[in-house]
């Protein structure tokens, strides 16, 4: 139980001269929701394919559910690829049942499971419909269902939210939480930080094929300092001397209402209340006082920087 569900050790994959993944190591504990973050072309899909043994790494070790190859435990893994597709002419229940039966369920059980899941996720009316008649979002739901129909222990979802409207994104988030609450391990890749922020226990951030962060969400947040934004006519540069304040900047970009805006960067665990108290004591006229925790988005931009735009697409 304490063995990691998945571990990678110095995994490298190159395509000719192009290094898609470079010496990536990480391990995923049992029963967590794990997010793969990274800009387009960072190597997320390549890593996922290597985990699934669709691709072989050039060097390094991969262990999945205690085995060298995912093929040996393929019936215990569920997979939703990045580019979604289903057989257009098949009926919805049949396609779910087919994929489940390929994963080792007998045909009868597979059929029953398909109908159960369609019922559970509000698609019972579409069970007999052909895939080609479904909307894109609906088709994606069907595909997610077919990835989990065989009750896998490890579920890998590559960009599961792309192409879904906000309502369906929420449905999918709920579905992921449901599965996780049953003690299953979920890996999903995304470049939309809000989903990762809401769902993930742990994150892996990669760019240019290299791991640049691996840890919990709050660890990620702590990478960039907390920040208080003040708007006041008074010059507050002297606040820099306060304990816990790292820096004070005039934020010219937000000077909208005529009064200057100031950004105060705080140390981790410092108390923004003390700053507010000080402002009152000094009788400063505050038009704005914002205390923001760093968002994952900020972390992402901070870590990936502007290189992201220059990634070679693969």
């Amino acid at each position, binding site marked *: 139980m304490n063995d990691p569900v998945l571990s990678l050790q110095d995994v490298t994959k190159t395509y000719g001269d192009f290094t898609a993944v470079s010496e990536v190591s990480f391990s995923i504990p049992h029963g967590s929701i794990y997010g793969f973050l990274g800009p387009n072309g960072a190597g997320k899909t390549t890593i996922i394919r290597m985990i*699934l043994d669709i691709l072989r790494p050039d060097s390094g070790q991969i262990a999945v559910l205690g085995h060298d190859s995912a093929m040996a435990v393929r019936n215990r893994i569920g997979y939703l690829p990045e580019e979604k597709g289903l057989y*257009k002419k098949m009926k919805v229940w049949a396609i779910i049942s087919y*994929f489940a039966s*390929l994963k080792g369920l007998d045909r009868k059980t597979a059929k029953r499971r398909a109908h159960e899941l369609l019922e559970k996720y509000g698609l019972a009316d579409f069970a007999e419909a052909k895939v080609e008649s479904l909307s894109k979002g609906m088709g994606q739901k069907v595909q997610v269902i077919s990835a989990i129909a065989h009750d896998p222990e490890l579920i890998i979802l590559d960009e599961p939210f792309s192409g879904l409207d906000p309502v369906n994104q929420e449905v999918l988030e709920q579905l992921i939480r449901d599965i996780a609450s049953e003690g299953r391990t979920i890996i999903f890749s995304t470049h939309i930080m809000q989903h990762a922020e809401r769902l993930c226990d742990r994150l892996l951030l990669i760019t240019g094929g290299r791991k640049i962060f691996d840890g919990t969400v709050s660890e990620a947040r702590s990478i960039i300092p907390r920040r208080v934004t003040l708007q006041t006519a008074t010059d507050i540069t002297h606040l820099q001397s306060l304990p816990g304040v790292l820096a004070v900047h005039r934020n010219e970009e937000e000077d909208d209402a005529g009064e200057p805006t100031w950004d105060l960067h705080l140390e981790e665990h410092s108390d923004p209340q003390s700053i507010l108290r000080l402002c009152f004591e000094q009788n400063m006229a505050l038009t704005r006082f914002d205390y923001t925790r760093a968002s994952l988005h900020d972390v992402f931009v901070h870590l990936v920087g502007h290189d992201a735009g220059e990634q070679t697409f693969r």
Partner: protein
Amino acid sequence: MRVIWLIALREYIENVRTRGFWLGVLLIPVIFAGIFLFSARLAENAPVRHYVLIDQSGQYEEAVASAIRREHQRRILQSFTRYIQQYRRPDADLPSVSADQASSQIDRFLNDAGSQEIATLDQWLSNGGLDNARQMAEPYLRDDAPPFEAPREQFVAVPPPEPVDPTASPEQIVEQMRPWLNDEQRLRVDGESVRLFALILIPDGVEEQIMVPGSEGLQPRAEGEGVQFWTGNLTDTRLPNAIEASINRNIREQAFAERGIDVSAVQNIQRMRLPLTRLDPGQEEGEESVSMADTFRQWAPIGFVYLIFISLMQSVQYLLSNTIEEKSNRIIEVLIASVTPNELMMGKLVGIGMSGITTIIAWLLSFFVFIRLYQSVETAMIAQVLDVLLGSDLIPWFIFYYLSGYALYAGIFLAIGSLCNTLKEAQSLMMPLMLILIIPIISMGFIAQDPNGTLARVMSWIPLFTPFSMMNRAAAQPPVFDLIGTSLLLLASVVLVLWLSGRVFRQGVLRTGQPPRLLELWRMMRARPS
């Protein structure tokens, strides 16, 4: 194994559910039945052809008329022969007294009609034609036989249209008749407007153009000499042939008469014949004579080659488009995460193979149903022949060559499919293979005529052609060396092709972008399984 079966089952079910599959299953029998029924109907309803005869020589009008009568009688004889064959009482039901004699009489009639048409026709005419034949055949017909309906007259003489002067010069007559001959004007016959089929113009003094061998008259023929037969229809040559034969006979009879030779003695001499029996040394003693069924058995392999070809074409197309669908939809990625590429490939091979077999069985079944339901002389013959065929050793060979040929080509096409993202890309890769596939079809006729000749033997040893060529030769007892050698080579090639295709397939299915160049393909084949 279980997974291969699951994939095969899905491929099979999905394929069988497509409209294209049913189209394929139904279209061939429908076309077959259509051609069969249509041609039968067409023969019954051949159009009536109207002709104008202008005989300025005044000698041959009767000969032409008799030629046309004779042609008509020939059709009646033919159709009466078919009628008897169809409604003849089984021998066992015949009144016992006359059974022997009767069946021999009618057998002789049928036999003669089949082998010696001209002689039979003469006999038919001198015996009183249809009326007499009816009387003769009457006792041997089944009770439920409908009355015989003689075919209509096919060639009907009409007088020349009004403005044409039959005594004018031939050139003028043709000029005047041109609008009718070119179908710009129509004739009125019994109040109906009909098209003129032909103008037969026998100019005055035509007898001077008779060519007599050994005399000076035998010179290269100039255009427009002799009897002129003007028609816009160049394909129907029955009438000109009949007229030519009849006039010539008339001339010859005159010549005989002039030299004091007995015409009927000559006719009898002309009817003398020594029959020829075709014998097959491969048959048991006493059964060497080559029957219809034997001939058919020799030609049946061609049917099987066609069957293999059509079914193969259909199957590989489906394999290709289906693999490309999975690739372009990216379904392949889920599949490859669930099953090994080899399992996927084998599953497809088996599934599509099953639907190919289903198609063939459906064709054969509908064929059987058709010949059971639609009873006629031809179908009765086909049914007999089929019985012979089913008992022969052609069927096991067909199954072997079908399956191995399928595996060979399916492997190649699956590999191609795995390398392409669109059908368009696939088509350029398919072209050379399609051309290769056409070769056995082109050479089929030559191989059938000389089944153990050099061409046949060389083609048999090329694995891509083995299934077709050896099937083609199957009825001709090919040498055991060829039989076993080519089979082993074929099986070895199937294994090799499937093994190589497996490697290409494994790497191809995840490829995106352009199909690989040859060098890259070579590398893919050599790569260790990843």
